[in-house]
Each structure stands twice: as C-alpha cells, then as structure tokens.
C-alpha cells in the first residue's frame, strides 16, 4: 500500500509555495517517512524552522510547529528542548538560513551536542529572495548577485558540523530519497545533535542561471556526481576529488546537553 502522507499533513495549507521543479518536497516527504519509520508521536514532536523556502515546511505538516525568525530555528529549538527534554525536536532550514544569518547558532548547537535533529535543505542559493549567493554556493558559480561568478568559497556542511562537535553527521541527496529517509530516521533516534546535509535543488533561481538543465536533470546530476563513502574507498584520489561524498560521516556517543544539564541540577540539589 502506498505511504499515507495525509496522516502527517495539513491539507488545508496546500498548495505549497515552492516553485515547479523544486526538490524541497522530496526532503519534506523523506522527513515524514523517517518520522513514521521511527514511530514518533505526532503530539510529542516539534518541528522548528526559520525563514526561507525550506522554512515554510512546518506550515504544511501536522505536528507542533514553530516558524521563527531568520536563522534562529536552532536557538528557539534549544529553548523548546531545554523546557521539555522529552519532546522530539526537529529543525528544518535552508543553507542561507542555517549557515549565514544562523551560522552562529548552528555551530553552538553542534558544540553543545543537544538532542536536536537539523535537516539542512541545501540548494546552494537564497531562493525566496531571488537567487542571491549563499554560504554553500560553490566558488565560481553564478547567482543574481555574482553575475561573473562567486568569489567566496562554500561551507562544507559535513566538515563544519563535525568540526563544531555534532555527533551524528550525514549527507544525502534528493535523488537518493530512501537513504536520505534512513539518515533522517537515524538522526532522530540518535541521542545528541544530528545534522543531515540534504543536497537539494533550486531550478528556478540557481539551475537556470548556471545552465544546469531541467529540474529532472538537476536531480539526476546527484546520481552521477555523488558517491557513498564506502564506495569512495575503491576510487583513486583523483576520481574521488570529482565526487561529492554521501553517507554517514559520524555517529558518536557523547554526553547529551540536556542530560548533562540535569546532572548539574541533581548534584546541586543533592548538595
């Protein structure tokens, strides 16, 4: 039987605002299937977002949802999680939201290892505001504000998250929707900060300008240009350099922030 998305949606909030060909819906569906797979209680699950195309997602899904200020989903989510650590807290954010205006909150949430799952809808551009370059726009690529190519170098979301201390870090793509769903599910069950770099596409403001073909071509590009980290071991360093690595990069067990916080409370009360 086909998966029943309606169980998790707010049908009255549709149609969504995403452009034709936008792959955000694939990430959204992966999140929904992941939640279903893990079996989270809808009423004990909070989805938090900031501002931007990706951040519209919480409006469409039937959980406790919080649409906040630009870049600050993780800060609001930290408040939610600390107030009631028994809640399942998931953040969704675009690359500009998560890593530019929200970059500070991003690294500190990773550092604290708080039990939140952050899904970055990484489409390399500020889509909603008209295709300005973002912290994940690759060097040299065109954006509306870099008509001769982007002089900046992009963040690698995986490296950044690991460097900052997140304990579950993975990268998936919208072509590989089933592995992406599995990663998100693992991220949810993981105790600690989980970051899923969900490579996504924006045909409207990024693809067209960079002549990346149709919306479908852009999704198929991931098939040919990404490789799982295990399979990558069989490639030569030159071959590997041309591919984007996907898979689970880190899955560590380290003390989680809310639990550590509770220990302090218990200790202080006991003293």
């Amino acid at each position, binding site marked *: 039987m086909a998966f029943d998305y309606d169980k998790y949606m707010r049908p009255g909030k549709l149609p969504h605002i995403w452009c034709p060909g936008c792959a955000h819906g694939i990430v959204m569906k992966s999140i929904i299937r992941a939640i279903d797979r893990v079996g989270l209680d809808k009423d004990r699950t909070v989805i938090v977002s900031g501002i931007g195309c990706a951040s519209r997602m919480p409006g469409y899904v039937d959980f406790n949802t919080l649409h906040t200020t630009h870049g600050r989903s993780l800060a609001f989510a930290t408040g939610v999680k600390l107030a009631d650590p028994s809640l399942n807290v998931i953040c969704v954010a675009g690359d500009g939201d998560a890593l530019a*205006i929200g970059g500070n909150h991003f690294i500190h949430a990773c550092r604290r290892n708080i039990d939140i799952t952050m899904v970055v809808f990484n489409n390399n551009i500020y889509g909603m505001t*008209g295709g300005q370059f973002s912290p994940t726009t690759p060097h040299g690529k065109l954006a509306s*504000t870099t008509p001769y190519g982007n002089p900046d170098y992009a963040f690698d979301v995986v490296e950044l998250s690991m460097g900052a201390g997140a304990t579950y870090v993975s990268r998936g793509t919208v072509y590989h929707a089933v592995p992406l769903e599995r990663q998100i599910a693992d991220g949810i069950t993981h105790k600690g900060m989980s970051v899923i770099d969900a490579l996504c596409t924006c045909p409207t403001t990024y693809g067209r300008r960079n002549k990346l073909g149709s919306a479908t071509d852009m999704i198929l590009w991931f098939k040919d240009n990404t490789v799982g980290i295990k399979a990558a071991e069989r490639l030569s360093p030159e071959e590997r350099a041309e591919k984007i690595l996907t898979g689970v990069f880190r899955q560590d067990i380290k003390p989680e922030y809310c639990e550590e916080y509770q220990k302090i409370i218990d200790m202080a009360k006991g003293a």
Partner: protein
Amino acid sequence: MAKEVFYSGCAAAAYGAKDARVEVISSYPIRPYTGIMMELSKLVANGELDAEFVHGEGEHAQVSIAYGASAAGARAYTGSSGVGVAYAMECYSPAAGGRLPCQMAIADRALDPPGDFGSEHTDVMGARDQGWIMGWAESPQEVYDNTIMYYRIGEDHRVQLPQFCCQDGYFVSHIPGRMKLEDQKAVDEFLPPYNPPHPLDPNRPVNHGPQIFPDQGSAINVQRAVAFDEIESVIEEVVKDYNKQFGRKYSPFVDEYMMDDAEIAFFLQGAHARTARFAVNHLRKQGVKVGVARLRFMRPFPTKAIQESLSKVKAVGTVETSTSYGGQSRGGNIIHETRSALYPLDKRPIVTSFMAGLGGEIVTLNEFYAMAKVLSDAVKTGKANDSYWMNFEKEVLDTHK
C-alpha cells in the same frame, strides 16, 4: 547629462547611491529592500559603479560592515526592511555615537507578526531615537534626491551622523514613477567626496568605539545631541542648494498642500500623502477646508516648522503608519511628538491620530473622507479621541455610513 527615466523606488535608491559615488555597499536579501541591492550589484558588475559590493551574513553584519567602511573613511551604503532593520538594532547607536555618516536605505515593511511583507513604518521607527537622521520620501524622485542630500547633510562636519533614507515598501519601492537622474558632474559638484575627519589610518592612528567609564558617557551623549542642534540649519542649507542646482521645490521639513486657508489637516509622512492630496482635492469641491502637511524628516523632528504649519488649522489628524502599543495615545507615535511640539503655542489645534495603513494595507480615499469627518466634528465639538483605529472604531465606522 540629466536623464528622464521611469524607475521604482528601489532603482531610484540604487541610482542615487551610484550618483553619490558610494564606495562600499553591504547587503543582505530581504523583501522589499532586495530590489535595491540587486540593482546595485548589477551596476557594480557592469562596471558602471566603482564600489566594493559585499554580502553580509545577516543584517547585523551588514550594518557592521558599513560601520567599518565608514570608519575607514569610505562613503558606505547599506539597507534593509522589516525584521532585518530590527535585527541590526545593536549597530545603530555605535554608528551614530561614533559619528560615522554611513547611509542605510529603508524600504519599510511590517514586523512579525503579521509577517505579511506589507509596508508599515514600524520597523525603522523603532530605531528613531538612536541618533540617526531619518525621513521618508513619497516618490522615486524624492528617494533619489534624498539619497544624495542625506549624504551631504550627514557628512557635514557640523553634523557627522548616519542616515536612514526611508521609503514606503512596495508603494514607493516597487511602483515605478517618472523621474530625473541628474548629470553626474552636477551631482559631484553638489556632493564632494567624503572628507572624514578621523579615518582609521596607520600613519595617524585613531580609535573608534573606545571603552570608556560612566563619567565619560554623558559627554559623548551631549556631543550627539549637539549635532542635532546644528542639523536643522544644515538641512535648510542643503535643501536650498539642491533646489537651486536641480530645479526642485522641496521645503526642508514640512511639505504643505492647501494649508494656507485650511481648517483641518492630515499630518503624515511617506507615500500615503499622495492619496491624502487626492482626498483633499475631492473634499475641497464639497467645501471642506482641508489641507495636507507632509513630514519630510522624523529625525530631526522639526518642531519650529511644524508649529508654523499646523498652527494654521483648528484640528490635525496624524495618520500613523506605525504602532506605539501602550503609548499615551494607545495608537501610533507621531501624535505624541506633534502634540509636544504644539504645546507651547498659545493657540493650538486639537490633535488626534488615525491608525491606518498597517500591515501593508492602503489608506483608501474613503478612509481619508472618514478622517476628515472626525476632524470637522472635532472643530465643532472641541473634542476628539486620542486615536482612532480606522475600520475598527465605532465612531469612524459610523462616519462611513
């Protein structure tokens, strides 16, 4: 050569900045300001404007970049809208206290909630007491002109203050109007290159933003206040020069329409003044003696010019397009300072306020007619409420009937 064009307020701001020869531009996308940065990025990319164009990683960084550029002696330009303006709040006092005359274009937008992208003055009105020059334009032409004039006012060594150069989001920022771009040479003559009194310079080291002790704080505050004592005469000078050089007819502080024989007046800033003038034309045909006084500067608040203009009438309605929740009037905030400005006069008009144009709604002709009715009644009865929330107040709804 001067050139006739058909530009939106966003393009007008960008071309104003270009003709002002800004040297550093810091940007971050947010509607409706985005239109300004997009136009500027094109001008820089096409080689039409020799400036550094930087993306901040948020509005806070954006205004910080403008601060840094200005401290280094550059003519710096930035801008934002709505929540972006609010996010950069921490940077406003340092820029004004540091006496750094950078300019921030504001295409205003309602704050969250309602988060509806509509025009409202609430965003930057929240920053009005930080020591920045601030005023609204009502047309793309005025946006262009103000951009150039504000730099000369702000960079004047008697002033040395940053400027919020404001326009109504969408109503001005996204509606094109016929306007004139002035000849670059003439603009250069009007606005010479920025001559910073204390730029960061390795050969002559200075310190911006020093750590001070409480007993030194008030002296710095007084300096900023003194700048606002000087500023009105500088503005008069600059506006007069601009009018002369480019054939404009701006009055420095209050733009009047049919005020000479008026009994009642709408007092407001920004684009809604245009609708107000249409309403006045109609009401005048019906024998209502009504005029419009449009405020061109919120900061400095031009007390003397307001006294001169509004003392001509018997009742004034400030048309507020921003909110002052819990404030004295329980409505907007222009009324508070307007009443204060008129208080010392022996003969002063009744002042009330109208909450309209909120969340991006247009202020319709019908609303202006209803306001005129309230003001005319106030003249007869000698009484009026502190504020009327248009379309939500029983008194106002009754006048619609």
